[in-house]
């Protein structure tokens, strides 16, 4: 069993976990998902042994975000109708339009972009969390970014 005090684990990962959850479920629901993510991590802390801690906790966070969408009776890939969540004031000062555009991406691209930039995972770790190949993860991020560029340029016109 990992012997790193859980408090140190919490301090190390709290900010990227919150940034990721805000990107996935929006700022108002991210708080609940944050509590659920770390409670699940605490309860299964022994299974971390030997794993990459950042990728491990993000896999839990991703599952909580997916559960959250299901229990809210939403489609697993929220689009425009979830915009009010994502554009809520908690993140107003940091590119709400851009993250609103992220929320409109197809599910795989959206998750890959969130794991890459909000959670700051490497492609290998994203592939692990999404149960796909490194190449596919890289492609999802790249396609997501291209689509975001189109959206941003359209808005600027």
């Amino acid at each position: 069993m990992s012997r790193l005090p859980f408090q140190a684990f919490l301090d190390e990962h709290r900010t990227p976990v919150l940034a990721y959850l805000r990107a996935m479920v929006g700022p108002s629901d991210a708080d609940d998902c944050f509590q659920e993510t770390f409670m699940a991590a605490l309860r299964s802390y022994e299974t971390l042994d030997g794993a990459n801690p950042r990728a491990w906790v993000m896999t839990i966070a991703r599952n909580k975000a997916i559960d959250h969408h299901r229990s809210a009776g939403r489609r697993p890939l929220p689009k425009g109708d979830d915009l009010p969540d994502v554009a809520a004031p908690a993140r107003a000062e940091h590119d709400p339009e851009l993250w609103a555009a992220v929320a409109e991406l197809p599910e795989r691209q959206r998750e890959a972009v969130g794991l890459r930039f909000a959670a700051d995972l490497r492609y290998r770790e994203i592939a692990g969390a999404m149960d796909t190949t490194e190449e596919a993860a890289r492609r999802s991020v790249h396609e997501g970014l291209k689509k975001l560029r189109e959206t941003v340029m359209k808005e600027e016109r």
Partner: protein
Amino acid sequence: MSDLDAIEAQLRGQGDADQSSLELARRFAEAAAASGDAEVAFATLDTPVGRTSVAATPRGIVSVGLPNHPLDDFVERLATQISPRVVEAPGKLDLARRELSEFFEGDRRDFDLALDWTLVPGGFYRKVLDATAKLGYGEVMTYGEIARSAGNPRAHRAAGTALGANPLPIVVPCHRIVRAGKDPGNYGGGPELKRWLLELEGSLPT
């Protein structure tokens, strides 16, 4: 910088996530300590002699860290010796922190805290600390006397070892065990702190 790089840079900005996550992490830690999912909770308090740490399990106070004991080391030992499910939860330790503060300020003479003896080895160690726990405020005993109280009058050195390993200083008042003579002797928190504590209680030999 290409458009894609600019978008990447914007996506990496975490806004106020750091401050918000600190508050959420604190709320999480208190909830985990209250539910018992975190098996150990710790907190710190400021005293006239420096920052003191205290930790509890659901059974009671399990460890006290004197000011010369670095917090990182205190927490790592809890993780290694009890459970890695350790969180900082000052709310959970509110009563212990209050009683310890009052003691260090000279406003409290004994403690009403449940104790968890997990970190005390059994046998003679436990007997020595049990006997020590019975000493009242301002009372002192020599190492030979406490060894006798613990049932082995000749084991004054072993008694010293047991006291040196006391995980619950202050609440199990090992500072009240002194050498015969003017020098009160060694202390886990340092000999200076032992003199300070005895002086606080009015029992420093003059």
